[in-house]
């Protein structure tokens, strides 16, 4: 290791320092290559750092990257810190040739590398980095579809009880008896959240029962699109119950997109109309507990469900029944009772089997790897980890 002489402190006047040029070696072997699995819009540049770029006492202060487009003038495109040896250039065009060179800078001098060959970014048609993701998606999708098909052919499928859903009919019946309304809150997200879609599909089943019993349903929503979809859904339920005349657009109304503005209004509705039954299904955030506690204070039966783990504790604490995560998505299939819908639930269980198997294998292997370091075991472990890690 070279230890620089310490005795002479550097002059405080930087102008003077400029007179002594600190000469450095240039970076070498710059290579530009196509970045894999993109739409032909990025390149990756690598080089060997200057030999004066040492971990200790190195003279290189930064690297500048220069690029020339179609043989034109080279322009500086990036500044990097010492020790850097690659750069990914993005937002390029596949019909342009690019060449690069790297310049190392000391405090007052510079040293440039050679220019790389000139290449074009290539476009790839399949992202091989995601092959394992594709296979896992394929297996799960295939098993879901397989069990749907089996069920269609009339094979009986067992599905365990979900307490929250067993209570739906009873909860609606209660509202009917008491002559009060049912309040349906589909969360505060828009139709681009699957949880909202799940809520809307459950609404389809609920409103069918509501139409049969001739109960009043009230649904304030926080998104205009959800309003449209919900109206469509309830209307269809009334039609299939044979009572299209009983349907009325005012069952669903838009309040505001604002989270707490919506909550304020729904709280108001709860204390003024005192619904007998409240459904809280969909994407909920901080408002979960505000709504559930107010609902509880007016004595309503509450059935809640969300796939947001952070809000589940509040529903568990304040509601009578809670659909936990996956149960929310299974609910519409469960309520429909149709074999093909139930088949999809069995398909999901195959996915759970895969997860359990993978975890068992991964845990065993990493335990063995932690005790003795056998190379084969580590290799297998690394492989499984790679299968279950998504990189882009």
């Amino acid at each position, binding site marked *: 290791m070279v230890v620089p002489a310490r005795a002479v402190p550097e002059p405080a006047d930087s102008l003077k320092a400029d007179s002594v040029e600190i000469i450095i070696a240039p970076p070498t072997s710059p290579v530009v290559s196509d970045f894999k699995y993109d739409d032909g819009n990025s390149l990756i540049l690598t080089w060997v750092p200057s030999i004066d770029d040492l971990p200790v006492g190195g003279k290189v202060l930064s690297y500048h990257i220069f690029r020339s487009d179609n043989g034109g003038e080279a322009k500086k495109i990036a500044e990097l810190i010492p020790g850097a040896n690659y750069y990914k250039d993005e937002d390029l065009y596949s019909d342009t040739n690019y060449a690069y060179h790297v310049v190392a800078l000391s405090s007052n001098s510079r040293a440039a590398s050679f220019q790389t060959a000139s290449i074009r970014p290539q476009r790839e048609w399949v992202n091989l980095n995601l092959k394992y993701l594709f296979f896992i998606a394929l297996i799960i999708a295939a098993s879901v579809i397989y069990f749907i098909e089996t069920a269609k052919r009339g094979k009986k499928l067992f599905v365990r009880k979900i307490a929250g859903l067993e209570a739906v009919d009873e909860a609606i019946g209660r509202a009917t008896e008491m002559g009060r309304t049912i309040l349906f809150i589909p969360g505060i997200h828009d139709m681009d959240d699957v949880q909202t879609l799940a809520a809307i599909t459950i609404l389809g089943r609920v409103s069918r029962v509501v139409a049969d019993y001739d109960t009043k349903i009230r649904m304030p929503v926080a998104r205009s699109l959800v309003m449209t979809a919900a109206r469509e859904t309830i209307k269809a339920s009334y039609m299939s119950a044979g009572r299209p005349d009983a349907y009325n657009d005012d069952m669903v109304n838009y309040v505001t997109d604002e989270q707490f503005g919506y909550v304020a209004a729904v709280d108001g509705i709860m204390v003024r109309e005192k619904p007998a039954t409240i459904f809280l299904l969909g994407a909920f955030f901080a408002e979960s507990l505000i709504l559930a506690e107010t609902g509880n204070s007016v004595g309503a039966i509450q059935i809640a469900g969300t796939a947001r783990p952070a809000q589940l504790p509040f529903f568990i604490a304040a509601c009578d029944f809670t659909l936990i995560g996956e149960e929310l998505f299974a609910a519409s299939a469960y309520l429909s009772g149709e074999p*093909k819908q139930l088949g999809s639930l069995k398909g*999901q269980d195959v996915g759970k089997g895969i997860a359990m198997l993978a975890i068992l294998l991964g845990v065993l292997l990493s335990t063995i790897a932690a005790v003795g370091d056998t190379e084969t075991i580590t290799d297998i472990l690394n492989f499984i980890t790679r299968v279950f890690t998504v990189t882009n």
Partner: protein
Amino acid sequence: MKRGVPLIITFVVGTVLIFSVFIPPMENLGENFTLFFDIIAVFAFFLGGGNLLRVHLTKLTRRKRDWEYSIVTIVGFFFMLACGLFKIGNPGDISASLTAEGSWFQTIYDNVFVPLGSTMYALLAFFVASASYRAFRAKNREATILLIAAFIILLGRTPLGTFVTGWIPDSFSVLQIPNLAIWIMNSPNLAGQRAIMIGIGLGVVSMSLRLILGIERTYLGGEDK
């Protein structure tokens, strides 16, 4: 036309989006479709805003219960909309930021919107208390576990936790409440969160498939006919 076309649209759009993830030339498709969604959602505002106004105007004209307050909503709505769409009081011209300092829009946001929203949010402090009073009772084994976990964590977040169990020697330090709280957060809590998330992942996959394949079509008007 009424049911067939929508089912085809859902199928095609869904399938294409799933495959686009694996095909680099289509990698921007998802992003663009999200933008499409935003644009459609703005159109939907017409329906939503129209509905909001209709509800309150009906209330007003029919003199339904609490009709006086509908005036507040309608006036507030139009006033804020005017401030926003015409950028009233904005320093600079049409390209100025909507939320520029000094604009009416921002002033109302700071002095009406924010206090209302954050007070509504702050009500949670009260509801957290009333919910724990009611829910954390040792009714059965599950409820007891829920109660104990919550109680340990609560205790661990006050000086009381250290005070009560600080005497426990180092070789049993996991039994000190603050350490126990951390351990619960780090292992059983983590395990539970993961199990829930794995379930959700599968639930969404299966739900999406049902929608794409048109098995679940309640949103289009049920499966009958």
